[in-house]
């Protein structure tokens, strides 16, 4: 930029330099120096005003162009030697270093999942993750949900615009039960060798639900599957009770309420005596003394059959429950949305 007026030229140089350092480039157009030039116009003798005014306007325009440029054009940084362990001319005490482990944190959901998985490992369950994108067969078909069945209404699934080989949309799984069929198939051979199938399946699941303090469209579930010979409903209740007692490290009472899932029969809602008040009634259990925690049941023969397992010979049970609930109850977390908020003031507490 060339300016006749030395005063304007000086401001131009100053502002260009400042522009480089500005975070918000637009601020340069509000610089006091520029404003002062404008104000100066009317103080000038009439014959000088025109030329001076034109130059100030030109300066403003050119700065505006620079701002636009800065906003649209990539401004490459000077190249560095990416293979080096540190930058040039850096004193040893200023070289990159790790933050203090005191500020590090693990996500509370993952922390709790690890605790839960550890108990199940110790009980003999292997763990495998569920996928975040799946098909109708694993979400419904293999689990004895006929096409158009009203039970599908309870699972408001997200679906992709893209379709699979059968022309059906892919599905964002609404439960970790999508893995039941796979686990049964994978471990069928074990079963035939006399080793029961014992697996837990942690995974992220999705429901087309509006967000509020208690509802998330994205949450974590843990599914469990156990299949063997002579497995009965008493085994199911005992297994879950044993887990919960290990988890809460105290004796608990449990109860079941009949429920309906297409993939288990019988199906239950599983409740435990409130471990926080020992059944006396508190805000966590809504003064009822009981906490409903899981859905469970004996695996439906059609589900076993779909995986090539003979329901005459083998029986089994399955359950599923949310992880968020455990964590929220444990720490008294008031809003489920914090989990995926990425807020450090929340996360660093764990």
């Amino acid at each position, binding site marked *: 930029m060339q300016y006749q007026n030395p005063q304007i030229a000086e401001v131009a140089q100053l502002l260009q330099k400042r522009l480089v350092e500005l975070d918000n480039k637009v601020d340069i157009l509000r610089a006091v120096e520029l404003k002062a030039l404008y104000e100066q116009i009317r103080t000038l003798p009439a014959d000088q005003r025109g030329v001076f005014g034109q130059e100030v306007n030109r300066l403003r325009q050119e700065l505006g162009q620079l701002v636009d440029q800065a906003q649209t054009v990539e401004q490459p940084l000077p190249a560095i030697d990416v293979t080096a362990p540190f930058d040039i001319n850096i004193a040893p005490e200023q070289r990159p270093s790790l933050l203090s482990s005191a500020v590090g944190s693990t996500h509370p959901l993952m922390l709790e999942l690890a605790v839960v998985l550890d108990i199940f490992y110790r009980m003999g369950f292997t763990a495998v993750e569920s996928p975040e994108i799946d098909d109708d067969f694993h979400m419904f078909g293999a689990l004895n949900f006929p096409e158009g069945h009203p039970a599908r209404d309870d699972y408001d699934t997200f679906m992709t615009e893209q379709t699979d*080989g059968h022309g059906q949309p892919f599905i964002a799984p609404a439960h970790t039960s999508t893995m039941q069929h796979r686990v049964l198939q994978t471990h069928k051979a074990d079963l035939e060798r006399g080793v029961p199938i014992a697996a837990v399946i942690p995974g992220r699941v999705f429901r087309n639900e509006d967000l509020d303090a208690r509802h998330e469209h994205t949450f974590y579930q843990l599914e469990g599957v156990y299949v063997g010979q002579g497995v009965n409903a008493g085994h199911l209740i005992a297994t879950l009770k044993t887990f919960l007692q290990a988890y809460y490290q105290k004796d608990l009472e449990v109860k079941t309420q009949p429920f309906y899932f297409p993939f288990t029969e019988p199906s239950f809602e599983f409740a435990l005596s409130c471990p926080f008040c020992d059944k006396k009634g508190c805000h966590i259990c809504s003064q009822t003394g009981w906490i409903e925690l899981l859905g469970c049941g004996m695996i439906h023969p059609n589900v076993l059959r779909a995986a090539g397992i003979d329901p005459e010979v083998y029986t089994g049970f399955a359950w599923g429950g949310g992880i968020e609930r455990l964590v929220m109850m444990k720490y008294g977390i008031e809003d489920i949305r914090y989990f995926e908020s990425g807020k450090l003031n929340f996360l660093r507490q764990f």
Partner: protein
Amino acid sequence: MKVSVNWIKQYLDFELPPLDELVEAIGAQLGAVEEVIDLGARYQGIVIVKVAECRKLEDSDHLNVCLVDDGGKTVGVNREQSGLIQVVCGAPNVRVGMFVAWLPPGTTVPSTHAKEPLVLEARTLRGVVSNGMLASARELALGDSHDGLLELDGDHQPGDDFAKVFGLDDHIIDIENKMFTHRPDCFGQLGVAREIAGIFGHQFNSPAWYTPQATIALAGAATLPLEVQNEIPGLVPRFTAVVLDNIQITASPVWLQVALARIGLRPINNIVDLTNYHMFLTGQPLHAYDYHKVKALSNGETAVLVARNPRASERLTLLNGKTIDPRQEAIVIATDQTIIGLGGVMGGATTEVDSDTTAIILECASFDMYSIRRSSMAHGIFSDAVTRFNKGQSPLQNLAVLADIVRAIQELTAARLASALIDDNNVAAETQARNALYPPIRLTSSYINDRLGLALAAETMATLLKNVEFSVDYDETSLTVKAPFWRTDIELREDIVEEVGRLYGFDKLPLALPLRPLTPASQDDLLELKQTVRTVLSQAGANEILTYSFVHGKLFDNVGQDKALAFKLGNALSPDLQYYRLSLTPSLLDKIHLNVKAGYDQFGVFEIGKAHTQRHTDTESGLPLELDRLAFVFAADKKAQRKHSGAAYYQAQTYLMNLLVEFGLAAKVKIVPLQPGNYDEVATANIAYYEPARSATIMIGDSVLGEIGEYRSGVRKALKLPDFCAGFELDLAALLAHGLKSKQYVPLSRFPDVSQDICFKVASELTYEELRDFVASELESKKPDNGLLDLGALDIYQRDDDLDHKQITFRVSLTSYERTLTDKEVSGLLNDLAASVQQKFSAERI
């Protein structure tokens, strides 16, 4: 499903236990109870009175001063000398001799009970004392009517407890509908009553009229002929109907209004109320049409009902006033000329029963549950009929229900049968013959016991089942079970197992852990790896975050990723959650600004998660691959940046190397500067956000482990990132494939090491790695046999006045396993090294 305890008691011949025990048993053996409503509390203290005297209140155009007779039973109330009680009343229908509900002072107006209770007191109205009030249906929370007092029909004893007389001393138990997804019968009070009998070990007997053999006989000729045509027998397995005339539409008797109101229904008129009453009794929806309206819309002298699919461009206005274009496959009801209803979902407005109706068609049909559900969803209509039809009502109960409602209507009104019974029955002959939807189920008692962990005798099982009206043949070891005609869910042996377990009580099952061999549970390597990554990074002061798997299309634009690669949701909640993400880094970058703003001056965040692209498909399953990834981003604001001289890139690299050490890969990876234009579309998406001059691919051999770098100015600007911001993203499958599971140990030497520094002045363009690799290989070849080399960078220096060169200082440590090395020996070795380096890179030793 709201259940009235008083209603079900009419069908039980045993004393129910106290309410809390009843509720607990229902929860444990039928389904979760959502709520128990104490209706009695709402109606406490309300008294039936007879209006004995009534005179206009002077100076008022509508108020009357009434003296009511409570039989002298109410205590603590002001009485006239006659013993009557003065109440002021504004209802137009008040008259001497009528029975009404009187709310004495101190009682709560029932309609206000739930929200802000209005407690009445003796109050002076225009100089006249009114002791409480006389109530309308609305004030009693028994309907919408506020036109006048609710006149209590029939004969009553003044002073009787209103709640008791009308069965409002009741509890309503609301059971979760979900439990009854496969139990259409439990959407009627009768079905729930039966289950409760079974739960408490009592034999239930359905009323005699509830039988598939029920019928309706017309004596004489049909005066109002009806014809039914069923074009879609597959979707309408049964359609029964009959015509009644001599109908007079009135308000229902109070008992009927009360019966409906207590389970939350709004009384409408006698005919509609009775259809609702029978629906809530049996679960079977019914519909009443105005016969003459149907006939007027039919072609000829006979009223015609047709069950069919809609014709092109047919529109229908429903009872709720909504006009719809029925979906193509819907079940609609029409005359032979025009559409009049959405079968099983909602009736049409044109044939509605109204106050002028004198003849009705009663329809009791069975509809395909899937079709009803789809129509309901497609048109957004969720009626009580839909709730019941979409569970699949038994087509064997239609005549029983139809016959009983005809009886009830005739009992209530002077109605006469005016047509023959029509029964368009497409139910399979064998199903009809056996009066059950599925063939009898044969099974052994051990089949049941094995699955429940019990040792019940076949006889005990039989009793449990017979209590709820199964027919059971059994001997010592086996049972043959036939479900009653209303049960649509008893098809498999497991269904019998469930019934026995439930009626016996699942909470009584013996608890034992399953026994299994000592085979250790296998561990999932990927899960283990993730746990290790999590531990290493959090110990390095980083914070694990989780972000949504779905992102906004704008985020792709902001970081320069190609949306076309990503899976898109067709039914996203909002544009914020429309695409499956292609990598995790953008999600992390999206969380940087909010934390800087919250005052965190420097932090490292990481996420372990999955990415999906349309280019990664599992060839075997046809499903998109789950790309397990780890992303890390370090950010520091302007102030904290001063603690980190130099490029942010190196901060990210420090975290990367710290992590790779854990997997034994720190020395094995190659950091390869990005080479623009050299990548496929997926790789391009993964590097899209990096600053080319300050980023690199992380390679192990030929495999890409990930990418590392600072972010482009456009990305920094769009996501408001601080200048000091860099990170990396790794493919966890590659990390798993190449990473070591345990640390590598190098045996210690008994001899001391010798350390010397060596500095080279090299051209600025020479990468550190190139020099280091050469130095390392030279030293490896030159070091003493059976020796150990440790090579580290000490300093990288560039003079202000010589930007063409840089000086790199290494610290070389050598150790022998066999002897003590001398300084001189090492110096000599470094001299040799210096010579080779000079030759190779024209580097000067400083």
